[in-house]
């Protein structure tokens, strides 16, 4: 399956409903452009760990977001 297929307009409109305008605009970019943006995000922002410290009640960690 093509990893970077071109999608019809309705698909991006659907993404806009699912994820918002900004994400849908990003999804419209060619893969290389998308990657360039991701690299910028990675370089400038720290994203939280998807998982909690463990165990919350024993070590004072966070619950799963």
């Amino acid at each position, binding site marked *: *399956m093509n*990893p970077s297929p071109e999608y019809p307009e309705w698909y991006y409109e659907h993404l806009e409903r699912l*994820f918002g305008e900004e*994400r849908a605009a990003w*999804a419209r970019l060619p893969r290389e452009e998308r990657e360039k943006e*991701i690299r910028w995000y990675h370089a400038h922002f720290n994203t939280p760990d998807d*998982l909690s*410290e*463990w*165990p919350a009640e024993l070590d004072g960690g966070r619950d799963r977001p």
Partner: protein
Amino acid sequence: MSSPLDFLRLFADRLREAGIRFAITSGMACVHYGLAQNTKDSDWIIRPEDLAKLRDLFAQRETEGWRISYRSIFGAPLDQAYLGHGWTSHLSVWSGGDSMENKVDIFGQPPRVQASEIVADAEGWADRHVVAQMKRTDRDKDWPFVDGLGLQLRLAGEARSLLHIRDARRLREAWVEASPESRRNMALRRPLLAMLETVSDDLDLERLLAVERAIWENVNRERYGAHERVWKEFYRRWRLANDFIWPVEGPFCGQHDHLLGAARIHRLAEDPLGDAGREALLRAGLQRAARLLNAPEKEINLVLPPIKEMLP
């Protein structure tokens, strides 16, 4: 300092060189498929029988400046006996002196994915069906990805799109487009599809979609909870031991031996789903879903996926 994307490619190359079979999944796969932007962590499905080779690879890389560490969160030793039964190992990897910390989660038997369906492309990305199955969690933020991946599968002409599309209108369109054989096969896996023939009101269909999602969410909650319970019990026993220390410093093989030894001594169950019983977990999940949505048993049964889809 390398970026998470550079690390991803580097690690994939090293796995390939070592003959370790893998698929990159979850958040990074959603980035790859143009659906997610904000993840740095990477999730890897590794064949459980290849985990010994992965530990060897880590030992070799440590001689070349890598650092690998268990993260001190809920997770199991990187061992076939655990990961082959649905546990996950959580690691941090630094791929050189100036490397950032790369959070790496390793699955052997990922939740809701049948082993025969674990497929990766030439670059190592798990296919959209696998990622969509894994995203059926009890977290709201994961569900839009299921729908998005389903739509991508539909646009690629894949019948399995019918398993994942969650938008009522798009699901009807995909159903009409599908061959009779695909409809039959997919309805066996997703009974809600059979209702498309008789339910004409989209609001009624959305209700069924909500009940179906509540089933997946609550069965996942029970699945996760079964692991959580045995981990808590293990960790409490371990912490009472005189020689308790965690995390430990040093080469990964030493950390691994320490954790695996503790798991054996303090009885971290290898197969929590088998021990709890999948049927019992399913029943508990269904009861919760029914109460939350005030859904009668008849309605639950209309859309109830087979247990082997939810707890393979």
